[in-house]
């Protein structure tokens, strides 16, 4: 499957219908610059992504974007954090091997001296009930959106 990104780049990925469970008691933490380029991440981020540390550093966060995620969710995320506010929601992430994992994500802007210098995203184990509620909702949103460019994050 070909994924198109907002910056004009694209890549071909293999999608596997296999869920990797979120590890108990962990947090996945990452930071990006204002463009969504990864600057810091913890071991749980590396482990769950399936990529190596070297492969991740400097990549745009959108490499985790799963094609089942509607654009509107990411637009809402970016609109919220760029205004200096906190965003939270359920996200299906794509692993390097094409499998996926669900997270409950909270993203906040890193504000230093009154200016947004980047974003921190912390992901934790989601409620299965909430995921089951959101799957059909995202599918509906996606169907309405049709095919077009994907945003980042």
């Amino acid at each position, binding site marked *: 499957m070909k994924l198109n990104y907002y910056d004009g780049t694209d890549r071909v990925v293999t999608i596997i219908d296999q869920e990797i469970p979120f590890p108990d008691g962990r947090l996945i933490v990452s930071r990006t610059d204002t463009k969504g380029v990864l600057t810091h991440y913890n071991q749980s981020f590396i482990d769950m992504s399936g990529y190596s540390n070297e492969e991740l550093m400097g990549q745009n966060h959108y490499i985790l974007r799963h094609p089942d995620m509607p654009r509107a969710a990411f637009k809402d995320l970016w609109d919220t954090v760029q205004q200096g506010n906190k965003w939270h929601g359920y996200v299906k992430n794509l692993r390097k091997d094409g499998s996926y994992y669900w997270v409950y994500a909270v993203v*906040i802007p890193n504000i230093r001296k009154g200016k947004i210098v980047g974003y921190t995203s912390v992901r934790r184990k*989601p*409620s299965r009930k909430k995921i089951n509620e959101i799957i059909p909702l995202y599918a509906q949103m996606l169907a309405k959106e049709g095919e077009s460019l994907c945003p980042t994050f």
Partner: protein
Amino acid sequence: MPYVLSVSPDFTPKHIAGWYVFNTWLQRQTELAFHLELYDSFSQQREAIAEDKIDLIYANPYDAAMLVREKGFVALAAPLSKADETIIACHQQAPIENIEALQQGLKIVTTDDPDVHLMGMMMLEPADLNANNTDIQQMDSYVLVAKQLLQHNADIGFFLKDAYYDLSHLIRNELKVLMTSEIFIIRHILLAGPKLQPYHQQLQSLLMNMQHDSKGADVLKAMGLTGWEQQTQEDTEFMIDLMDTL
């Protein structure tokens, strides 16, 4: 008037003496007068912070935002390789095997330790449990949390990992760990207030060398620490951001 040193009330009881020894060590090293003031609860300590009665504090990460952003404190150091982790435990014989099996109406015993409580509640989210559909009781200590579990007065309890392993073998044998957090990056920090500003560099330098000095290493051991590492302003800002996401 001596400068006032305080310690987050969640320190383990067996290290109280260690903090008094640290206070004495600090006075000898700096030739400044320090007085160690300990508080029984976080609310009492926060009142003292609000009244500007504290100058140096080994603070719970939950309080870092308020200390840095509202009171002008600056991080001097963080304990070396020592993160705050949370354990969720139940009675050994309780028919609970995993978090997702927990049901609404769950009786939780906790303390006023803010980061442990926050992490504990976060670990219950996969079971759709929150403050609105559980019964939460706050105890004055982790020993009392354990007691409530042993007496079957509650279903699960939240413990600071260090405090859990400070419980006697006898008590722990009657308990069962359901989950341990592995977050690694939430930790206490030593923060200095505005009145100590002229001495920040001196204090930082002393702390960084503490583990390399035999007397300093003994003091650290008494406090249950192995050393200090530098905590930059950005490290602190990042931890504040992180706590804000929880």
